[in-house]
């Protein structure tokens, strides 16, 4: 990328004084004027010409020099004054003197670091170097001994093809040559990534393909490589078609665009999170549906009890008509299904069926399907969490946010005019805040202020935690009471109508959802009472309080189900099939949670908006609380994961719920809310949400399911694991049977014994994992140190540059003054002669 800058001061043009002293008017004080002049001149200019400029007249066309207001005569005294004061001892100054001569300015303006942004020749050079590097990487590496010593050791790594006298056409030829030698994938990727305009890329591609075709036709292609070539082409074509088909299935593209156009990326992240959850549930539904539901639906077991009639209440309670259906665990049979014994299900299969019929081992299938779906969900979650974390984690600790705020905070997706105005207001407030912070950082608050603030925070926390503990205790005792009521009523067989009994099952979900609704309002009120210094702290505190509430509520519910309900299975006929009962409970919780969200959206946002419009007559509508809504989504998804073992069709219910929720929230947001008035760091919050989805939510659900499978005795009369002590034992037994039938699966049993049951494997695996994490953190530390060193080096190079330019300028001035004297003398002589 080194242009041949001609620093030769004994250049004949200088001697001849073509840089005429009369050009003192040409002492520019801004680049813009200079470049505007350059573009107006025809042919090479008079002053010291940089050779590349002479040879590449077309570069001038590429330089975008249009929109320069010639009246722009800013004097950059500010920078120079400041640095002048600071660096008193230094000779050099920042490159902002307002009296550079035009030659110096020309040199400055054609420096590589400044032309790369605007000149086509520079871009082609840069990409030529990049393709050369790529090619070199695939070929033999040149050893360092081959390079001659140079004053700038940094050139050594580059293969020293200092071909600085090449014109743009030659550079382009070499670029095309390099492109040909790359693989097709690399070539396509490199062409896409070049920041040139499309017509030039087209010509580059055409030239590359032309030459490729020539080279190909010249060599003799063997028949198999010819075929391979065509096959690869056909595959690539079909891959592109497949990708565009997938893209065209964009779910909800228009509504998402409307939301982002009006509210920006923050609110959009909520809807994208909802979409992600929808895809998770669709995957679960497909897996469970194809492996569990469909086989069982095709070969239904015989009904022991009479099916109850359908009343409307089933949709809410999940019992009644739905009780003995595919929805719940109790329906699934515990033996192998055979395709021939369709009529006679419960009895063992006839001997003549064995050889030809398809058999499907339902308990084993149930066990492995649940395990597989949890495992795959875990992998997907950990992968997306690490990807999201990797994107938002930055190695070097940034020393300030201002530059980043100014360059990166404009959201180009926002389209609506009022939202654009709001965004500008946001940015202005943030910039002012940051400027104020920088100013007032040294002002410390007094001790009493700090104490008061500490006391307020402490009170707030005590209030919130106390309220949470109180509500958890209420749920505990109420669930105990309801449990005892159900035991009593089933034992007495009292004359209460069925409907009332079913409806009383809804009491616990309603209580829990009510608590989930009311307590966050209390938290918000507490947060409003305590004054927080920074908005991000407030967000984190409210997020953690809501999280504590939801985790404790779910914890006490799991305790209730897994200890009490499962524990009373033996002595009560109501809980004979406790897994189905737990499945029904989870179904009820999901449905009631959805109804409460609906009501809260309706009454909360709609009524609040009309209240504030009509009564308070304020112009500001309520904002959309992203964190609280995302936590609600995570809570619902935890319930769905918990219920996977007990109700295999629960993902379908969750899918319906999410679809309806999307449209309801979308219309509510559009009608009632306005764009957020506070800054929202999207990628950081998205990382946090995915982490929350993985750690408390998914981990908790999988721990509960593992505990159920491992420790709890399964019920005797229903489900695929009836009659065994625990589900894991049933699974093992089935595997043993399978191995007995097919002896070549022996290795599976061996693998199971040595790998899964051996605690040493787990220990070794965990140790290796921890060691890898430690190494990676050391690598990151090392990279931080390297970044600091490189920054220092760049600063030093900048000093070099400034030194050279100022010396050049001073030498110029010295040379010019004798020349001026000379010409003035010559003119005097002329006058005298005449």
């Amino acid at each position, binding site marked *: 990328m080194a242009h041949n800058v001609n620093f030769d001061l004994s250049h004949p043009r200088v001697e001849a004084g073509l840089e005429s002293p009369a050009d003192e008017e040409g002492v520019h004080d801004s680049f813009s004027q200079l470049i505007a002049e350059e573009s107006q001149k025809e042919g090479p200019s008079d002053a010291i010409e940089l050779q590349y400029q002479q040879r590449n007249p077309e570069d001038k066309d590429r330089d*975008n020099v249009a*929109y320069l207001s010639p009246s722009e005569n800013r004097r950059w005294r500010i920078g120079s004054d400041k640095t002048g004061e600071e660096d008193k001892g230094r000779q050099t100054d920042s490159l902002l003197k307002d009296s550079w001569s035009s030659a110096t300015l020309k040199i400055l303006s054609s420096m590589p670091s400044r032309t790369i942004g605007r000149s086509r020749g520079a871009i082609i050079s840069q990409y030529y170097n990049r393709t050369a590097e790529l090619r070199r990487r695939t070929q033999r590496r040149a050893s360092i001994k081959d390079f001659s010593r140079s004053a700038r050791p940094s050139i050594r790594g580059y293969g020293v093809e200092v071909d600085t006298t090449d014109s743009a056409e030659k550079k382009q030829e070499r670029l095309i040559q390099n492109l040909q030698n790359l693989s097709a994938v690399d070539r396509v990727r490199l062409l896409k990534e070049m920041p040139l305009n499309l017509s030039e890329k087209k010509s580059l591609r055409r030239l590359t393909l032309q030459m490729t075709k020539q080279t190909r036709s010249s060599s003799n292609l063997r028949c198999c490589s010819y075929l391979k070539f065509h096959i690869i082409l056909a595959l690539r074509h079909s891959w592109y078609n497949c990708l565009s088909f997938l893209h065209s299935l964009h779910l909800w593209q228009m509504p998402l665009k409307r939301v982002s156009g009006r509210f920006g990326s923050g609110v959009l992240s909520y809807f994208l999170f909802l979409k992600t959850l929808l895809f998770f549930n669709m995957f679960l539904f497909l897996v469970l549906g194809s492996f569990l539901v469909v086989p069982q639906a095709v070969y239904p077991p015989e009904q022991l009890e009479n099916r109850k009639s359908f009343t409307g209440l089933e949709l809410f309670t999940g019992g009644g008509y739905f009780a003995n259906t595919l929805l719940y665990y109790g329906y699934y049979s515990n033996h192998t299904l055979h395709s021939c014994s369709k009529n006679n299900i419960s009895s063992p299969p006839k001997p003549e069926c064995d050889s030809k019929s398809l058999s499907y081992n339902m308990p084993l299938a149930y066990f492995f399907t649940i395990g597989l779906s949890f495992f795959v969900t875990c992998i997907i979650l950990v992968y997306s969490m690490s990807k999201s974390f990797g994107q938002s984690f930055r190695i070097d600790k940034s020393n300030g946010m201002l530059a980043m705020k100014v360059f990166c905070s404009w959201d180009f997706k926002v389209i609506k005019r009022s939202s654009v105005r709001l965004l500008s207001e946001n940015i202005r407030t943030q910039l002012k805040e940051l400027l104020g912070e920088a100013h007032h950082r040294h002002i410390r608050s007094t001790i009493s202020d700090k104490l008061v603030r500490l006391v307020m925070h402490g009170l707030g926390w005590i209030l919130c935690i106390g309220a949470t503990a109180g509500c958890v205790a209420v749920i505990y005792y109420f669930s105990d009471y309801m449990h005892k009521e159900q035991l009593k009523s089933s034992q007495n067989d009292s004359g209460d109508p069925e409907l009332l009994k079913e409806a009383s099952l809804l009491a616990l979900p309603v209580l829990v959802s009510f608590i989930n609704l009311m307590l966050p309002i209390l938290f918000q009120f507490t947060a409003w009472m305590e004054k927080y210094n920074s908005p991000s702290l407030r967000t984190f505190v409210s997020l953690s309080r809501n999280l504590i509430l939801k985790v404790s509520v779910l914890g006490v519910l799991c305790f209730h189900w897994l200890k009490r309900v499962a524990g009373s299975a033996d002595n009560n006929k109501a809980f004979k099939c406790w897994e189905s009962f737990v499945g029904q409970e989870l179904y009820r919780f999901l449905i009631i949670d959805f109804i409460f969200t609906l009501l809260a959206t309706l009454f909360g946002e709609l009524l609040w908006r009309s209240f504030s419009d009509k009564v308070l007559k304020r112009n500001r509508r309520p904002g959309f609380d992203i964190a609280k809504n995302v936590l609600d989504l995570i809570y619902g998804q935890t319930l769905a994961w918990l219920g996977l073992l007990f109700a295999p069709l629960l993902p379908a219910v969750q899918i319906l719920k999410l679809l309806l929720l999307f449209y309801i929230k979308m219309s509510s947001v559009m009608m009632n809310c306005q764009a957020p008035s506070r800054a929202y760091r999207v990628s950081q919050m998205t990382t946090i949400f995915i982490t929350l989805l993985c750690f408390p939510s998914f981990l908790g659900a999988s721990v509960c399911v593992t505990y159920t499978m491992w420790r709890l005795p399964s019920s005797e009369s229903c489900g695929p694991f009836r009659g065994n002590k625990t589900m894991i034992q049933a699974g093992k037994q089935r595997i043993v049977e399978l191995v007995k039938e097919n002896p070549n699966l022996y290795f599976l049993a061996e693998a199971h014994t040595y790998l899964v049951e051996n605690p040493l494997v787990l220990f070794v695996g965990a140790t290796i994992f921890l060691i890898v994490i430690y190494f990676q953190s050391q690598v990151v530390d090392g990279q931080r140190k390297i970044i600091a060193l490189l920054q220092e080096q760049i600063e030093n190079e*900048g000093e070099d540059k400034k030194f050279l330019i100022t010396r050049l300028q001073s030498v110029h001035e010295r040379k010019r003054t004798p020349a001026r004297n000379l010409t003035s003398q010559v003119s005097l002589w002329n006058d005298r002669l005449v």
Partner: protein
Amino acid sequence: MGTTASQLPKESLSEYQELTFLTKQEILLAHRRFTELLEGDERNHPNPRVPMDAILTLTELKSNPFKKRICQVFSTSENRDGSLTFEDFLDLLSAFSDSATLEIKSHYAFRIFDFDDDGTLDYGDLEKLVNCLTGETADTRLSSEEMRQLISNILDESDIDKDGTVNLSEFQHVISRSPDFVSSFKIVL
């Protein structure tokens, strides 16, 4: 859209797909929106050029404070008037698309913010940039004192070689620290 000149030939479509970050559907949608901007007689022109005023009527660009700079950066016209051909329009959408790399986006963002097109962001460029961000009316701008302080802070933070301007590499260095840039530098038709 009756005439064949206003429809996209198949080879061009696959070529555009290979050279830009857009998918086939996006290219077709762009073609449709572009021809809507043309006057009736221009549609039969082999390579029509839409003037800047027409481009600025698109809803995606109408309220954007950088709309003029965007048109100027992507324009390949001789007289620098910001008019765009269809290929310039595709360039624009490709740089602002979902799958464009960080490097392309930061390159074009730099060119958009470089108001005087001299290859670096100096004081004047930064001042105009901040004014665009905070709004155009007089009461929404920062005071001159605040502006001065802001720009000197920005230069302190991002000017590594201390030459008083932010060049492309320094700009890309700042951009790489912000994970939100890629998602906010997007325009979707």
